[in-house]
């Protein structure tokens, strides 16, 4: 049970870790000072949440596990984040669309995780939810601003939503582990979040004058450790210091 719980916690944290890393890449490269600061602030919130999850997982795992070994020293297939969050940064519309599609899910997920019978998970969820509520507000606002903006911004936001849509369904596919954890009331049944999710996403997209993509085939695999070709490069950069100078500390 304990090992399963560790795996489950890491899976939750990995989404925020990898997305936080993607946003961190934009530090100093945002399209304007304000958006640069906003994106890295969101990244900081995500990393803060990740630390809480990993510290708890490390405590359960014992032995030589620490928040740093979990973040930096696992192999690619051991990360269980969804494919959506590892997609590389292209333009600002894409970064916002990726963040928006995750934020809406993240908020719904945390709302449910608050009621977990595991008190630590419930506390982390309650804390994180307050922060994520701001993220959703920020990205929804930008999706609308770009979608309902100029011809150029509209076309970029449409393309971004279209490109990323194939990664949405994976959010709601429960793995065996997720099923077991939700059966024991520790975890969240993500399949139940699906309808509300698309409802909320559609309503923002409608306001943004972006049409809902007509997609029949969806990508999945990240939750089982089968990642897209972008993941290895991301990890190479993220893990560089720990791999090059083992046991380094600041």
């Amino acid at each position, binding site marked *: 049970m304990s090992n399963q719980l560790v795996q489950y916690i890491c899976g939750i944290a990995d989404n925020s870790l990898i997305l936080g890393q993607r946003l961190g890449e934009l530090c100093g490269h945002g399209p304007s000072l*304000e*958006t640069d*600061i*906003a994106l890295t*602030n*969101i990244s*900081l*919130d*995500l*990393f*803060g*949440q990740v*630390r*809480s999850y990993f510290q708890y997982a490390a405590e359960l795992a014992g032995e030589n596990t620490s928040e740093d070994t979990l973040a930096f020293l696992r192999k690619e297939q051991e990360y269980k984040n969804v494919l959506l969050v590892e997609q590389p940064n292209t333009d600002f519309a894409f970064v916002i669309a990726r963040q928006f599609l995750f934020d809406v899910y993240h908020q719904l997920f945390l709302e449910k995780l608050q009621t977990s019978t595991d*008190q*630590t998970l*419930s*506390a*982390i969820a*309650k*804390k*994180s939810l*307050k*922060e994520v509520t*701001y993220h959703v*507000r*920020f990205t929804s*606002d930008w999706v609308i601003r770009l979608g309902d903006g100029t011809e150029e911004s509209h076309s970029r936001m449409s393309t971004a939503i279209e490109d990323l849509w194939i990664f949405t369904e994976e959010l709601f596919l429960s793995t065996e582990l997720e099923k077991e954890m939700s059966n024991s009331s520790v975890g969240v049944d993500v399949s139940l979040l699906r309808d509300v999710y698309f409802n909320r996403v559609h309503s923002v997209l409608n306001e943004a004058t972006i049409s809902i993509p007509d997609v029949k085939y969806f990508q999945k695999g990240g939750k089982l450790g089968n990642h897209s070709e972008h993941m290895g490069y991301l990890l190479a950069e993220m893990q560089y210091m720990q791999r090059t100078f083992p046991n380094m500390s600041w």
Partner: protein
Amino acid sequence: MNVAFPTIDTELYDILNAVSDPEIPVLSIVQMGVVRAARIGENGVEVTITPTYSGCPAMDVIGDDVRKALKDAGYESKVKLVLSPAWTTDWITADGREALEKYGIAAPLSPEADKEALLGNKRIVKCPQCKSTNTKLVSQFGSTACKALFQCEDCLEPFDYFKCLK
């Protein structure tokens, strides 16, 4: 028990109230509502603190500062970090809000007003310099995780607004 009020032993209150928030130096960690409990026990002092935001980089420094301040006053101490109940801007004390305003940071509004202000729907955030409400939102995220950036349209001064967290 009302969680809004921390339980701090009287002997420790002044010591902890002298430890300032590293990112908002005019505010003490007690005024900020970060100290949730401080008790003198058999094995020294145990202090419980809670972060404002999960990723708040000031927490480690606050822990060190608390231990140092207590040591200087002759107490050995342990600092414990808790997440629950989660911090809210309601825990900033009345004199803390005043200190914020004096320092040039607009204090948090109520949750509904905060939402209107941050969506740019209503001009209700008051400029801490000239008190005008003719202010505009520049960015929902400011110099630290807990603040948004505004600008006063009358005195043209940019200023931070401490976001409501509830």
